[in-house]
């Protein structure tokens, strides 16, 4: 019973835990940036006048959005990296780190794309027509007029996607990379599955995600386009 309420392991392993969360943060930030870029490219494809691009974008989103993340990461780590020997670095740790990021961002990009597409639907058609009427090309009107307004209208949903991504990093354990949840599992093995360890890690994730939620809520209000 005593060991069940023992917060000692959290203190003893504090440095390891921090390192685990630091890995979580790096995975999240890197994947978020790549997912945002890829998601933007995908949504541009999905609204483009070229049927081939539209189909490719739709196909990608439907596949990635409907495949469990665990499978995506296993495909990256076992299929692409181990079986096909597509290594991204000679150091196995770094190799798995990048494959984990590749899997997370490929998966998250599908959700970013769909959020942005919903955002584009909130932009009145007249905005794009006025853009075309002054002689902007399709890409220019998307980049300068439609997407900036679409982004501003979906900041809150993008925040939710970022929070989901932060928590989804726990699954990269299947891709062989050590982050916070892997540290937790290791501690369960070493010290037994105690409540304090669990609570400590749960709090750690909240320290990351709660401010994210507040920040995006604030940003959404600040950048809202007034019509």
């Amino acid at each position, binding site marked *: 019973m005593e060991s069940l309420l023992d917060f000692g392991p959290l203190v003893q392993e504090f440095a390891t835990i921090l390192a685990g969360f630091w890995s979580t943060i790096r995975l999240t930030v890197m994947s978020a940036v790549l997912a945002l870029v890829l998601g933007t490219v995908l949504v541009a494809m999905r609204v483009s006048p070229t049927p081939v691009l539209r189909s490719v974008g739709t196909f990608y989103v439907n596949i990635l959005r409907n495949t469990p993340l665990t499978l995506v990461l296993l495909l990256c780590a076992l299929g692409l990296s181990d079986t096909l020997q597509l290594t991204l670095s000679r150091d196995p740790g770094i190799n798995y780190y990048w494959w984990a990021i590749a899997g997370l961002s490929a998966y998250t990009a599908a959700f970013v794309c769909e959020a942005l597409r919903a955002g584009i639907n909130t932009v009145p058609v007249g905005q794009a027509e006025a853009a075309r009427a*002054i002689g902007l*090309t399709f890409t220019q009107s998307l980049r300068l007029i439609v997407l900036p307004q679409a982004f501003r209208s979906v900041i809150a949903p993008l925040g939710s996607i970022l929070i989901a991504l932060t928590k989804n990093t726990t699954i990269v354990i299947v891709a062989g990379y050590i982050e916070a949840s892997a540290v937790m599992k290791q501690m369960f093995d070493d010290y037994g599955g105690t409540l304090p360890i669990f609570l400590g890690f749960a709090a750690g994730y909240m320290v990351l995600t709660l401010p994210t939620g507040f920040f995006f809520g604030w940003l959404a209000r600040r950048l809202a386009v007034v019509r």
Partner: protein
Amino acid sequence: MTENGDATPLVRVENVNKSFGALHVLKDINLTVSRGEVVVVIGPSGGGKSTLCRALNRLEAIDSGSIVFDGKPLPAEGRALARLRSDVGMVFQSFNLFAHKTIIDNVTLGPIKVRGVSREQAERRGMELLERVGIASQAHKYPAQLSGGQQQRVAIARALAMEPKMILFDEPTSALDPEMVQEVLDVMIGLARDGMTMVVVTHEMGFARRAANRVVFMSDGQIVEENTPDEFFTNARTDRAKDFLSKILTH
């Protein structure tokens, strides 16, 4: 209003047809617009006025016939089409100012991104144009902070900033509160005086009488009648035009 020596028309529309599904909206339309001419398009709702207007800068593609602008057929797509559009201004009923950009940025975006003008030069010219439409003091506000009449005047300045060869107006005053209509019409009358080629869809008879060279009456997808404003409003030839005029004259 000004006479122009150049005899070739700026716009020549020939046998243009356009359908939305089963709905035949433009039926064998023929129309020419000379340089410096102001043409008012008038007619009942659903008659195809907007569609014709939008076909002139290919916001709406046509099914058959030809539209020649400044000696060249309208390009179908791509950069050539974008270039054509940069030469044809358009003012919409709902203003359509870029909501996330300030007034001055609305006016300078086209010159900078399409014409490759420097920001400094574009802003100097943009401020002159805002001055001309009476909005210079609001240059750093956002569209939503302006009244409808002010927004529409900015939209006209945005079109002028591209130095277009022609400006299309699709019911520019229909979405405005009555007290704001005149301020927009005054700007348009000024443009007409300065020799701008204009195609204006409007029911403002005062504007037509003061500024238009010609009135084109459209109904059910056809051009039913064309005449000078005075002749048209006092002596319409067709029953459809007479009927329409009797309805708009009662209010």
